[in-house]
């Protein structure tokens, strides 16, 4: 039987709601995302990274919590936030990194686009808002040891076609130098310029596709999209 994950999740969500909220936190207490979304400080391989990880721990926790509550349609896996070094970097360049999985149907309309177009669409939707979230604490952008930002966006490309098969994800990794991010966040350049000056790598499942050229536009999706009937927990605000 072919069932889209969205339908499966709808069923599961309906079941969860029908079954009551026995697992929910006590009224008034906001749930928290798992702490393991952050790379532990002792798992970095350089003093520079360990210092960054320790110095900005609270900012990273706030980033994790903010995405958990305010962008509930995306998911963070273990060790998705940290000061990682882009693979193959010639020095110990440390980029504040965030990897998210965007939960959406693999639509035929979207699938008909070329990979560069899909990457452009995802870049347009998410990179600007995520950069703002990643730098909500001004100490991040003010720290000269932060060399840049990496945003990794992942979505489902293909459902399992037969029993025992696994779903396939498509991923883009975007590397943005600190000065470019700063110019964008200060309003000096549009997101299209960020895309031109960023390095974007594509992946089809586990296969590297190499650098992608993207054409990006201002997109208000993250600011305007609301999950139906979603209510923020007491004490949580999203801005």
């Amino acid at each position, binding site marked *: 039987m072919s069932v889209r994950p969205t339908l499966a999740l*709808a069923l*599961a*969500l309906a079941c969860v709601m029908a079954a009551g909220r026995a697992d929910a936190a006590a009224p008034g207490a906001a749930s928290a995302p798992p702490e393991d979304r952050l790379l532990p400080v002792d798992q970095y391989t350089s003093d520079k990274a360990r210092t960054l990880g320790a110095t900005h721990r609270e900012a990273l926790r706030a980033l994790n919590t903010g995405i958990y509550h305010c962008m509930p349609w995306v998911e963070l896996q273990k060790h998705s936030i940290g000061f990682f070094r*882009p693979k193959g970097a010639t020095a110990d360049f440390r980029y504040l990194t965030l990897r998210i999985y965007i939960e959406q149907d693999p639509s035929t309309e979207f699938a008909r686009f070329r990979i560069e177009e899909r990457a452009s669409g995802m870049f347009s939707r998410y990179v600007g808002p995520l950069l703002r979230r990643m730098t909500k604490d001004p100490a991040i952008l003010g720290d000269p040891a932060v060399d840049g930002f990496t945003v990794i966006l992942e979505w489902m490309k293909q459902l399992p076609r037969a029993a025992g098969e696994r779903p396939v994800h498509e991923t883009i990794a975007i590397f943005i130098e600190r000065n470019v991010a700063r110019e964008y966040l200060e309003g000096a350049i549009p997101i299209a310029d960020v895309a031109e000056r960023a390095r974007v790598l594509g992946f089809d499942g586990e296969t590297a596709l190499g650098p992608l050229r993207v054409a990006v536009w201002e997109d208000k999706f993250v600011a305007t999209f609301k999950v139906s009937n979603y209510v923020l927990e007491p004490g949580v605000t999203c801005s």
Partner: protein
Amino acid sequence: MRSMRLRLLLVGGVLGAVTGCATGEEWTTWKTHPTHFASGEHMFFSVRNREGAQAQVTRQDITLARNEGWWGKPITVSQDQILER
């Protein structure tokens, strides 16, 4: 227990099928943008309760629903293909 779970799944399916439509606001959002490809969340979070009033979906509901609707370990790029620690 198993049959109870199945019954709940069926009830959920009917509920989802009947109420799984995008709201006007969501469609407006779609129409505002040239690439309306993120359709999934529009449907699978559109669950309303049976009395007509809108059900409230909490963050924990979404987490639990994800756990139940999991499709298995995906084929995807590993962190160490992109990043170093």
